[in-house]
């Protein structure tokens, strides 16, 4: 099912003993997590539990203060030279899309390949159109982000990240800012992506999505990983009370 080397045993992301502080407040406490190529991970947990902080540490939008993070064999630290290279290999999709409003959809998608990977413009456009087709909005290529619906914008954001040919995709609550009727179109895109074998780490409360595609579901609370299990185990037989309580809250809706 996966078209990337599934036999590779080296984790593409390995996080060991990571802690993160905002001033005196500890947002992450001693996190250990290894993600293999092709693995799909869903992270959930109550608000403020550190989910965003954790995945933002993976492309170093946030700095961690203790422990180590390796992405594709490169350690992330303050004085590293090639953070831009790591970031260009890690796609990120934000809750608020963060598209560039002064550029067309096509330009949003070609910018990365052209400016970072030095792909010629014609080729970058081909790549962009290929991914825009994949997320089902090739016809919007010449519009500006604000002319699109939220769901369409988020799909562009996914396409924009994919244009960099990333090894991992990070999603930070990609459907939370969307109207209910647009959630499905974005989830469908993500499911499609998962089935193509992309390595994904998704912070989301869409439990249906987790059940359908996740290899592992991670539950965080107060900056710690409380539980980590495959979906059936996680949903049917949660080990801790906190997980059970959280599940009863999200699954009611």
């Amino acid at each position: 099912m996966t078209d990337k080397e599934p036999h590779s045993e080296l984790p593409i992301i390995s996080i060991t003993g990571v802690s993160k502080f905002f001033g005196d407040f500890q947002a992450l406490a001693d996190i250990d997590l290894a993600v293999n190529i092709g693995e799909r991970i869903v992270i959930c947990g109550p608000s403020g539990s550190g989910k965003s902080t954790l995945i933002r540490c993976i492309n170093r939008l946030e700095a961690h203060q203790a422990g180590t993070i390796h992405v594709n064999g490169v350690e992330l630290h303050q004085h590293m030279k090639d953070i831009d290279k790591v970031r260009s290999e890690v796609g990120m999709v934000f809750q608020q899309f963060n598209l560039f409003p002064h550029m067309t959809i096509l330009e949003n998608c070609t910018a990365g390949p052209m400016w970072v990977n030095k792909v010629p413009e014609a080729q970058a456009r081909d790549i962009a159109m290929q991914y825009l087709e994949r997320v089902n909005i090739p016809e919007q290529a010449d519009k500006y982000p604000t002319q699109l619906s939220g769901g369409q914008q988020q799909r562009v954001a996914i396409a924009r990240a994919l244009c960099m040919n990333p090894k991992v995709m990070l999603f930070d609550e990609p459907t939370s800012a969307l109207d209910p009727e647009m959630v499905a179109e974005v989830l469908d895109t993500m499911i499609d992506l998962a089935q193509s074998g992309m390595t994904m780490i998704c912070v989301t409360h869409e439990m249906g999505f987790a059940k359908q595609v996740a290899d592992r579901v991670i539950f965080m609370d107060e900056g710690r990983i409380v539980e980590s299990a495959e979906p059936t185990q996680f949903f049917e037989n949660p080990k801790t009370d906190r997980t059970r309580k959280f599940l009863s809250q999200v699954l009611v809706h």
Partner: protein
Amino acid sequence: MIQDTVTEELLLRKPRFVLLLFLIAGIVFFILDPSQTAVGHFLAPVAGNPEESGFYGRFVTSFTLAVLFIVNLVAISLLPRFRWQVIVVWLELLLLFLAFFYSFDLSFKFIQSKIWFMVTQGIFTTLYVSAISIMIAFVIAIFGSVAKLSSNGFAFAIASFYTSFFRGLPLLMQVYLIYLGFPQLGFVIGAVPAGIIALSLCYGAYMTEIFRAGIMSIDDGQWEGSRALGFKFGLTMRKIILPQSIPLIIPPTGNQFIAMLKDSSLVSVIGVWELMFLARTLGNKTFNHLEMLITAAMLYWMMSMVLEFIQARIERKFRKVQR
């Protein structure tokens, strides 16, 4: 601002308000006593000789003026188009101004004999000094604002010292300091370069603050979105942040340029032959000071209007791009 679709009833449609306004206007005119002015002379057939008409003449002239004033106001308010109202009011105010200048009994012949020189020498110098200065200031502002936002203590210190110093001293003093101070250091510097340096540094400081505000108003998400794609700082700044800040920066920058156009008059003190310098010197010999000052004033104003127009065009263009 978006206009409301419902307009309140105009005050000028309410008879009581109009009457009140009329009374006030009448009283004000009466106090100012127009009977001795051109209006009084014009109304002499009715009000009698201004010199001896006394209270009656004063009453008739102020009453007439008040009527004219109110009729004019109501007439303008009845004009059906926003545009027409603007044009009529502008023309009327302009006429009033001209009448004001006319009353100085200026020698138009003298103006005519000097105006060509004022335009070719004065305006030319004023414009090129301002244009060069604003361009240098623009470049200073880009670096200054980035430095002020940077986490590098050294860069921040230099930038904040610079803005504090050049915003803190009167421009006139900066002009003197640079013109007279540089030779002390061994650099002899011409008046024009000294003026350009002073204007650039001063306006660079103000524009640094404008740029900083423009950059800060861009959502953090844009930085993160850009960074997450692997864009380096310079690329993010050039391609993502600045293009979005420019539309916010343009109106205050245009404002600064118009201000600079007039502040460039300060370099006349070190002998640059720009508009203000000519205005002060040309009329000296024949005591036609007022002629030259008013001519220069009109020329400054016209240049500013042209710039305002250009600014409006540029703003509109950027708004279209941004939607």
